[in-house]
């Protein structure tokens, strides 16, 4: 048994993996109607309100009983989309090695987010390149060009060019809720500079679409365009006015007129581009199961003894379910529960610490939500190569071949059963010290 890890999501192919606005079904229709335009939003309100009005007019307050079946359908659709039709498959298993940018954080869906600055990039080098890139583009960043600084986002024009507070300046280039055009152009240029240095593009596939790693044409076409030649006279991102006015259709959102969509994320606190990885939780499942449980109670109660009975049954069912979850600590969070080992022994917990050099192994996907970035999701194995304290690690992935060799070793270790018996030389056993200790908990149970 290679792994005992419980995961929840599966990825899907292009066209099947869609954002919530395109999930289809009853829920998808409502969401789509609400998000497409103001007109469709109004139509959704009118139709929904009309239907509700007809139900209330016909059945009185017993119309509430119709919510049960509707809620079940909606919850099932959301659960199915969230776990099986949200993530775009790129590679079934892949490896990434890098430095933990910040301590993992918990997400609403119970996942634990872990961001990596990929090898061999280092924070201080990235910062230096970013400063160079900004200085090279000082003229572009100070000209009140409405294409670069649209008045709607930058009513006061370009922010003051002040590199003494690099973090503050990068923040000022991205003042809105969604990434600004100029911020994306600057970070795309930064990544282009970083990956242009020989030996630094070892894990470039996680920062930028690479046809060598995405051979399937349908998948390639589905992933948004994340890079195009710069529009400056040299078509070079390392030269002044490093930006691209490329506009095209985003196949995931099915929206035209979209600019370049970076496949990496940029950490504004630590000023580095990173690969986002997620250790899976299952909070959404719990929420949807809560809804289905309550809606079933409502429907049953309505059918047996009327609307009031349905409301009470729905509330009771929900309450029981929540109490049972509370009793068992079923919170959907990806954190480690307390564990009792059949054979007790030492196993101090491992925390993801900022600065740790780690290797993660899991599915390389693109999340169709959240701006469509590459991710490793779910993480299936976590290797610590160097802790912040020891800090002596020197990256060995100076070239793709070395990274490939390491990933092959990880894949072999993760996907191969441990045989019930092995034969080893006496020299090996003596090197072990004639004793072994338990490894990490990622193994499956052998057949009894």
């Amino acid at each position, binding site marked *: 048994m290679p792994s005992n890890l419980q995961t929840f*999501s599966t990825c899907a192919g292009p066209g099947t993996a869609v954002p919530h606005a395109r999930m289809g079904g009853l829920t998808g229709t409502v969401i789509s109607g609400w998000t497409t335009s103001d007109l469709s939003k109004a139509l959704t309100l009118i139709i929904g309100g009309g239907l509700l009005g007809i139900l209330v007019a016909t059945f009185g307050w017993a119309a509430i009983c119709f919510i049960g079946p509707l809620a079940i359908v909606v919850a099932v659709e959301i659960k199915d989309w969230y776990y099986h039709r949200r993530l775009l498959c790129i590679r079934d298993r892949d490896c990434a090695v890098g430095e933990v940018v910040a301590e993992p954080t918990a997400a609403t869906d119970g996942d634990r987010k872990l961001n990596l600055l990929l090898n061999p990039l280092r924070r201080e080098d990235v910062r230096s390149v970013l400063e160079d890139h900004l200085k090279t583009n000082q003229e572009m960043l100070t000209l009140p060009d409405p294409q670069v600084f649209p008045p709607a986002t930058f009513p006061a024009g370009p922010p003051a060019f002040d590199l003494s507070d690099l973090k503050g300046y990068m923040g000022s280039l991205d003042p809105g809720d969604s990434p600004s055009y100029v911020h994306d152009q600057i970070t795309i240029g930064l990544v282009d500079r970083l990956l242009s240095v020989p030996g630094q593009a070892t894990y470039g596939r996680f920062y930028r679409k690479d046809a060598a790693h995405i051979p399937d044409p349908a998948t390639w076409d589905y992933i948004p365009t994340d890079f195009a030649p710069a529009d400056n006279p040299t078509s070079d991102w390392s030269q002044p006015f490093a930006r691209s006015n490329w506009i095209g259709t985003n196949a995931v959102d099915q929206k035209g007129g979209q600019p370049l969509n970076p496949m990496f994320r940029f950490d504004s606190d630590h000023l580095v581009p990173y690969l986002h990885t997620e250790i899976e939780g299952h909070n959404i499942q719990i929420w949807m199961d809560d809804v289905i449980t309550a809606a079933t109670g409502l429907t049953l109660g309505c059918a047996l003894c009327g609307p009031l009975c349905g409301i009470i049954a729905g509330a009771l069912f929900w309450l*029981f379910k929540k109490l049972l979850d509370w009793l068992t600590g079923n919170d959907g969070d990806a954190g480690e529960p307390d564990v009792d080992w059949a054979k007790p022994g030492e196993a101090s917990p491992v925390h993801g610490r900022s600065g740790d050099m780690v290797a993660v192994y899991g599915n390389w996907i693109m999340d169709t939500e959240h701006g469509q970035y590459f991710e490793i999701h779910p993480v299936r194995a976590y290797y610590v190569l160097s802790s912040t304290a020891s800090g002596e690690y020197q990256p*060995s992935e100076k070239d793709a071949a070395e990274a490939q060799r390491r990933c092959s070793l990880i894949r072999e270790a993760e996907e191969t059963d441990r045989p019930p018996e092995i*034969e080893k030389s006496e020299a090996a056993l003596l090197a072990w010290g004639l004793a072994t200790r338990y490894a990490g908990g990622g193994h*499956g*149970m052998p057949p009894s």
Partner: protein
Amino acid sequence: MDFFRILILEVWAALLRALFLPVVFLVATLFRLLRLLVRLWGARSFYPEESDDGCPPIPEALVRRPDPCIYSQKLLLEQGLPVTWNNPDIWIAAAADPAAVMPDSYHLTEDTDYLVTVRVHNASTDAALGVRVRLRHRSWGFNVPDLQPVETDGAGQEVSRFVDVAPMGSSLTVFHWHTDALPPGEVKHYCLQASLEHPLDVNPANNVGQENTNVYAANPGHVTPGEVVDVTIPLFNPDRFRQAVRFEATMYRVDDARRHVLRLDPNPGYRRWHLDERIANIVPTLHPHPPPTKPGDEGPSMRSVRSSASGYRFSLRAQRPLVAVRTRYVGFVPVRERLRGLDVALPGGMQVRAEGRPLEEGLELEGRDTVGVRFTLTVPVGAGPGAVFPINLVAKKANGVLIGGVTLLLRVKE
């Protein structure tokens, strides 16, 4: 069509939940109250101190814990096993001819480039990634403290290597070593020390291995039958007080041809649940479930029924009780017993004396002091040409604690 099947299954699971919930809740609550009562019965305080970790650990099912290791004399001696300082995991070849591995490390020449290969093992069922390997040398002797890097960069800084080792496997890494120039006729002894470092090493006790070398101004350095070999070995007292030191001599080398069978030993980890929590976990649920990428990659302990709808699995439990499984290989007892029973006594006709006295008499040494102890080894008269005598000398404190050891490899001229 698939959606309706999932819808029906979800409703079915919800109906079962509805049926189970009140009963399960009542029983679980009853047991919970009982447990609370038992706890309060013997409690001195109603407000136990609690701690809350803001950053919960990485789930154990994801964490990989390696055990990089090397033939470590100290660890083996502590188990009462015979050892050699002719380390089976360190060997040397001339840089001019890397394929020709030296049969031993006792006949090296001065002012010469050598390649020192270090074999790093991994005793864990998890891969060891990024193991730092350091190779340093110190003047030969019993626990002489001054360690110098074997290889340095242009700035004079120590050069380390980083290796990856497969589960239960081994990897090689090579260091460059240039031996010192020596005056004619002089012999210099070195002890090479390889050490391994990894932040999640499950057993750091097996990380330091030593290899003795002799560097000669003029090769060879072989012995003849009946010859009395005179060797002075530095002995360092690591403590601050005067103490008695005794010596032991054995003849032992690692039998690399012998093989042993080990068996897998799984250690399942379950959620720390009381009876009421186990009962409360009986909540019929349709779990989102990725189809296995290879047959049987789900644990049989799930006791669940796979639904006909792909991507889902129906289970009577809300959460899996089995959280993680740790593994290792065991079966060392017969190996240890065999090694402890080995006859490692010196061959007939071979005598070893320290300062002209029998080894067991030993000597006394001032605190933090280093002295050169003169050993004489008499090669058996009947030793045939090409015979090799791996003599291991061990220095121990009066209480039996190891100070250090060296191996003298005496090869009879052919």
